[in-house]
């Protein structure tokens, strides 16, 4: 019996691109869940040199070598400016669709990469250990419409992050075309009480469902930057162009753990970030999805206010994050870094709990009750 179903599946796969788009026509009309794109700045981006408090005298004092030269800063307000590598974000800021959320963190911060990103990924308290990612909990609680290709797609690899654990239909892929080509090798049958085997069978099933509904033929007029992050942005755009919905796409820019030689390294990374986000916006406008999409950054932590001796910065706490989209209320949100109120370790106090940042995305973008997911009441901010 099962052999027959496998054969039927292989037959379906051989005409996959057509089967995919035909099957979608019915569900494409009104995806009820808007698209969220999360960009992880992995390693802990240095927020103080990203959104620069150039007028604060403490900034230059704490960073005699690393402070961005005042003349180089792209000034947005009398106190705040962007790192010069982020020049491509200026038009988004000027159109009032770029929100800068300052001082995002959490109480009792943990300075380990792994523990802190786990806290962010699971939206837990600092001393609480949760199994599933926060987005997994969203989908377990409120599944995406049945016709969606997937709840979430992780572009590239490096873990499922906020989509880890059971309860979400999430897939990881580096390249949609290759994914569809290889999907013919999946079977998606069976159950098991062996946890490891059950995991593999579940991944197979998710692959099959997504492969039957995804396509990757859109040709964009938008030019995407070269490099790994640029490729990730192009893949994200390709996925966003699918008629079958996807609720969330996560992509990653890695390398922000700048303990040494920060200046050149962060400059390069922020260039990739700014150029990538700018291309992403252009692509979303091109496919008519800018108004139904929110793009938001996150990271495990910010970096220490005072520079270290090796031309870098050590692990810190509160950080700045960027949000853009057609419904985003641009401008400064949260609170400017309190460089005059560093704690005993030399770290910044936080002003916005990261779960309030998430609550804003959940309630204002998806109209999901954040409380059910975040295990507490966190008032949304006004950036959406």
């Amino acid at each position: 019996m099962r052999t027959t179903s496998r054969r039927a599946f292989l037959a379906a796969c051989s005409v996959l691109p057509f089967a995919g788009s035909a099957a979608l026509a019915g569900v494409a009309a009104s995806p009820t869940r808007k698209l969220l794109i999360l960009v992880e700045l992995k390693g802990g981006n240095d927020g103080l040199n990203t959104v620069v408090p150039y007028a604060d005298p403490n900034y230059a004092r704490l960073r005699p070598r690393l402070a961005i030269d005042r003349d180089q800063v792209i000034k947005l307000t009398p106190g705040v400016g962007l790192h010069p590598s982020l020049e491509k974000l200026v038009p988004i800021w000027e159109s009032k669709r770029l929100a800068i959320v300052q001082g995002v963190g959490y109480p009792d911060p943990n300075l380990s990469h792994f523990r802190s990103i786990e806290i962010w990924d699971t939206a837990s308290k600092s001393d609480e250990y949760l199994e599933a990612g926060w987005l997994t909990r969203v989908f377990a609680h409120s599944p995406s419409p049945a016709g969606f290709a997937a709840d979430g797609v992780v572009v590239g690899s490096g873990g499922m992050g906020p989509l880890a654990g059971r309860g979400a239909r999430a897939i990881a892929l580096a390249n949609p075309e290759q994914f569809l080509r290889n999907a013919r090798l999946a079977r998606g049958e069976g159950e098991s009480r062996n946890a490891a085997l059950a995991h593999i069978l579940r991944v197979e099933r998710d692959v099959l469902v997504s492969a039957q509904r995804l396509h990757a033929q859109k040709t964009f007029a938008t030019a995407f930057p070269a490099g790994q992050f640029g490729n990730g942005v192009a893949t994200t755009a390709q996925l966003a162009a699918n008629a079958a919905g996807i609720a969330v796409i996560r992509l990653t820019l890695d390398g922000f753990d700048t303990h040494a030689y920060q200046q050149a390294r962060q400059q390069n990374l922020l260039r990739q970030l700014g150029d990538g986000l700018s291309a992403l916006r252009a692509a979303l406008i091109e496919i008519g999805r800018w108004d139904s999409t929110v793009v938001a950054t996150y990271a495990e932590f910010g970096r220490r206010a005072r520079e270290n001796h090796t031309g870098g910065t050590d692990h810190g706490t509160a950080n700045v994050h960027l949000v853009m989209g057609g419904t985003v209320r641009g401008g400064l949100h949260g609170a400017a870094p309190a460089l005059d109120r560093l704690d005993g370790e030399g770290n910044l106090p936080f002003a916005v709990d990261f779960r309030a940042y998430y609550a804003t995305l959940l309630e204002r973008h998806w109209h999901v009750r954040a409380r059910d997911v975040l295990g507490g009441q966190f008032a949304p901010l006004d950036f959406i």
Partner: protein
Amino acid sequence: MRLFAAGLLLALASAAQAVQEIAPASAGVTSADQKIGFEGARHLLNRAGFGASDSEIRALAPLDRAEAVDRLLAGTRREASLAPPAFVEAAFVPYYRVRQMNAEDRMLALRTRLQQAFELRAWWLHEMAVTPSPLTERMTLFWHNHFATSQQKVRSVPLMYRQNVLLRREALGSFRTLLHAIAKDPAMLVYLDNAGSRREAPNENFAREVMELFTLGESHYGERDVKDAARAFTGWSLDRDTGEFVYRRVWHDHGEKTVLGRTGRLDGAEVLDILLAHPRTAEFVVTKLWREFVSPTPDRAEVARLAAVFRDARYEVKPLLKALFTSGAFWAEAHRASLIKSPVDLVVGTLRTFGIEPMDFRPAAFAVAALGQSLLQPPNVKGWPGGESWIDSSTLLGRRQWIDRVFRGAEAMNASASAQEPMAAPAPREAMRRTLERGMRTYAFEAERWSRGVEHGLADRRAHVTSLVLAMAPANPVPGGDDEESLVRALVADPVYQLR
């Protein structure tokens, strides 16, 4: 010595007890002094090495658990069996000199480095595939994951090689020796930024990770401990021209520090001894070894027992592994097939199980990287997370594709241009692509040759082949009939083939 023997006796006693506790739950379990049989030998060799051939398994089958484990531990090597690539002996080129080069030379230096890293990975995989001591290589890889260091940041393949030699030398030696040596290892000094750490502004990176990831584990130390430990490691640096460890006295903070409640003018070695004296360290390492060898869910009481064995043995690895491999939990039915193969397990294990002898190991290096385990380049200092995270939709399809190519035999080898490219590497030029494809042709499974090496005259040959290839019964139905080649293809395509 007597302490050690007492610890071992204790270990064996509680192992026997553990067996008794587990036995009622799973009837067919053999007790400790019975022969381990084919299934048992397969289990031991697949867990302690990378796959195993029919004849290797049959050689261990008539032994009991203790005999089999003793034999496994007796013949372990401390050096690789293959000679390393010639370039590892070449003069160290400091990165600051590369930075001074003109753009063209710098590009050339970068290309050379990436090329050498690729060759070193291929060399290591080759060693794993042919070594008479697979446990040595598995433990070398375990320590590479534990003391994760990436050539991407170290930017010197000879330094990565020196670290690999150290990890192998102490793979089954002393964790104490290894920890002290790794703290002074040039690649590690670069990777965790200690090389430039001086008293005016200590760099906390190494001090934090040595506690969180190498010894105690998270939440067993405070920020104060990190800061003071960082001061203790100031001055542990590199000679920038030779790439050798050097202690820079003037950079060292000679003041008083407090780490885990011990106060004094501590230096780095004393901090390491404080960490080794903490009971959490043995538990932390044993927990990791449990996940490597036994199951994804460590048993607290057993971990505590094994940690005591480890401490009593003064952090010698072999007595610990002996206790682990003879424990009831290691042999429990419930733990068979409970671990997901890493990409290295899959690729090297397939080669060893099916007697495939590639001419070139660069395609293997390419494959494991595409599947998420680029050797010498772990994703971060925590290493590869492993377990279920090895398998997501992208890597599962990649695994199937690789298996498909190997087992469809020679005709498939010529057809497909590989779509698997590790994302971090630069696009290989056409010449390299052709080299890889030529090399990949030597990975073709030769069904007839392999069949001849599998024991003949058994009543149920299909069952024998199945238990050789899979750690438990297949999840999908396998085709009937006498065609052994299609049986093997069905077994390696089964989801259970991803388990060990």
